[in-house]
């Protein structure tokens, strides 16, 4: 046993290594990103996939072949990966498949605060929720084991405060090796045509019934006896807040929150005079518990917004619905001085473009002095939302519509938008700007297929955007440095907006924070040759 000080993300990575995970795949996204980075740094096999759907499918393939697979993403990533999720629940796996969903209640760095506990129920996938780094370590190992035992994928749901908080972890004494993989043909189990999927759905529900039984007995759903006046049922990070807010209360800490141990919950609720359910985010637990006819209290609606903390739990317990003190106002982030995105937004702002934007550092182009972004919904939406605007706006407005997307985002989910642009061509054509800063800057400078380097910064095949776009049938493809060639950039933009053609301008210049690191990787590479 080794005593370590680890963030939740590092703890997950350490557990993956100690449990012999064969392959980790994911797409960066705060607060999940450091899991695969750390797993790779300590010797695990990890890769960035172009997006979360691809990452999950790679994980499914690996687990079909008997591997222990780990797939990581932020909460909104699971929307992208939802299609394989719902059906791998039917097929199950031979090895192990654990999906990390890193939720961001309070939106420290996200476009929404969806509560992915709902996905576990909707897809029929068991879910574990750790409350600190030690449990992040323990439950990843447990999830791999349960996944193999029940032949089912498992979601390990973490939140920003689990991922990015450090705490003490005592690691396991026994370290497991990666699995020996071997393909076993199982056509009815793996090929989800309706005739095979119908029984597969029944098998899934049978498995879930058995897992619910197991969950009634397991010690991971811990009862902490205290006073009889107040009992608290909770999970995840809310558990530690609540223990601190109400040290005198009795607790039922739920660790597997789908499928729920409803008998255990009923007994606990019956054993106390007042039973309150503390849910961060959606009323997930309280709704399920009440639907089972168990009498418990929940929280007032105002606590659905944002993350919980000790003070908010105290207020919930006191039924206090008065206005909360405003959180401290910090200095908002801005594009770095010298950021290559700045030049582009100066021009878009001056030209009064209607900017269909996307997600990345460049979303900060919405702030003064630029205020040069009009929409931002989800990754990849810039191109397709821009097309929708082009198709329907009056011509004078349609001609001002520009889609702006980062390089990592373009690979993630922008390419299909380009296919739509050349296929369902707007009458006025369209203009797409790819802001290629040679990195995924927003989430902390990760590689992607367009950088020509792997997750560990070793060289890889570099996706050639310009050649690909030309081959896809885009009329005009330009590559330039919008800062160094600002006149040229403005001229090309003006001309492209005026004509009825489809144009993609790749504005290429490395992020200033990435540039130094890229030089280091290159020198290292040259020295190695």
């Amino acid at each position, binding site marked *: 046993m080794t005593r370590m000080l680890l963030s939740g993300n590092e703890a997950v990575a350490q557990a993956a290594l100690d449990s012999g995970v064969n392959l980790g795949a994911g797409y960066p996204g705060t607060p999940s990103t450091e899991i695969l980075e750390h797993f790779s740094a300590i010797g695990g096999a990890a890769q960035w996939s172009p997006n979360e759907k691809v990452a999950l499918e790679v994980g499914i393939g690996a687990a079909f072949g008997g591997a222990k697979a780990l797939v990581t993403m932020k909460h909104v990533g699971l929307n992208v990966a939802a299609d394989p999720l719902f059906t791998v629940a039917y097929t199950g796996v031979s090895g192990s498949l654990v999906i990390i969903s890193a939720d961001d209640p309070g939106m420290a760095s996200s476009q929404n605060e969806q509560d992915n506990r709902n996905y576990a129920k909707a897809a029929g996938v068991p879910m574990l929720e750790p409350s600190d780094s030690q449990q992040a370590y323990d439950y990843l190992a447990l999830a791999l084991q349960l996944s193999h035992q029940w032949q089912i994928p498992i979601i390990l749901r973490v939140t920003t405060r689990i991922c990015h908080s450090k705490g003490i972890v005592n690691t396991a004494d026994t370290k497991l090796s990666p699995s020996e993989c071997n393909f076993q043909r199982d056509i009815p189990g793996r090929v989800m045509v309706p005739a095979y999927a119908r029984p597969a759905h029944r098998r899934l529900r049978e498995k879930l019934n058995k897992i619910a039984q197991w969950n009634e007995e397991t010690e991971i759903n811990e009862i902490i006896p205290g006073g009889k006046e107040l009992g608290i049922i909770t999970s995840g990070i809310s558990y530690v807040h609540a223990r*601190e807010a109400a040290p005198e209360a009795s607790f039922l800490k739920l660790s597997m929150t789908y499928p729920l141990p409803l008998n255990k919950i009923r007994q606990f609720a019956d054993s106390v005079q007042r039973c309150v359910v503390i849910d961060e985010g959606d009323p997930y637990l309280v709704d399920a518990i009440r639907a089972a006819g168990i009498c418990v209290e929940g929280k007032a609606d105002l606590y659905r917004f944002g993350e919980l903390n000790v003070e908010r739990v105290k207020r919930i317990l006191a039924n206090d619905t008065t206005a909360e003190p405003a959180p401290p106002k910090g200095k*908002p982030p801005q594009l770095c001085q010298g950021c290559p995105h700045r030049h582009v937004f100066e021009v878009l702002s001056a030209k009064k473009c209607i900017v269909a934007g996307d997600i990345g550092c460049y979303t900060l182009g919405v702030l003064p002095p630029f205020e040069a972004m009009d929409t931002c919904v989800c990754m990849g939406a810039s191109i397709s939302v821009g097309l929708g605007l082009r198709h329907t706006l009056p011509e004078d407005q349609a001609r001002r519509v520009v889609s702006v997307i980062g390089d990592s985002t373009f690979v993630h989910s922008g390419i299909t938008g380009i296919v739509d642009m050349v296929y369902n061509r707007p009458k006025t054509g369209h203009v797409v700007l790819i802001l290629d800063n040679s990195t995924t800057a927003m989430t902390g400078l990760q590689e992607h297929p367009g950088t020509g380097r792997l997750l560990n910064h070793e060289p890889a095949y570099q996706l050639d955007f310009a050649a690909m776009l030309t081959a896809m049938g885009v009329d005009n493809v330009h590559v330039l440095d919008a800062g160094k060639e600002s006149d040229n950039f403005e001229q090309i933009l003006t001309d492209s907006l005026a004509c009825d053609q489809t144009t993609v301008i790749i504005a290429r210049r490395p992020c200033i924070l990435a540039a130094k690191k890229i030089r280091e990787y290159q020198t290292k590479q040259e020295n190695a040759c």
Partner: protein
Amino acid sequence: MSDQVTNIVVAGLGGQGVLKASDIIAEVAFAAGLDVKKAEVHGMSQRGGSVTSDVRFGQGVLSPMVPAGQADYLVVLDETQVENNKAVLKPEGELLTIALINPSNLKNKRTINVAMLGALSKRFDIDEKLWTDTIKANLPQRLHEVNMEAFALGRQVG
């Protein structure tokens, strides 16, 4: 339990070494054999926005976040970040700002975070060597000397 837990909040702007400072505090407490938790909000700190980090150590730390009005020490690396963070202090809590340090005594301005750790370290009964060893372990060799000087300066004025 709150009597047995020391609560520290470090605040500043992205790039000033807030997270490095809080990591070092947490590692010192860890090395001293205490229970410790550390939380941070660093959404997009590389672009100069506010950054804060909470460290709690002692016996049996529960929530990783320091509740409002519960901090024993607030260490601020940028004067603009005092106002928005001071509500976190206990009435008897102590505010430590960079006003403590005379910048002309610092060889390298970027060591201000470590100088502040020097001042903070005086408040605890933890072996000075644990602090200096942990600081060194967190920095490349070439920065050791200048940071040791900054730490010593902080201990003097703190």
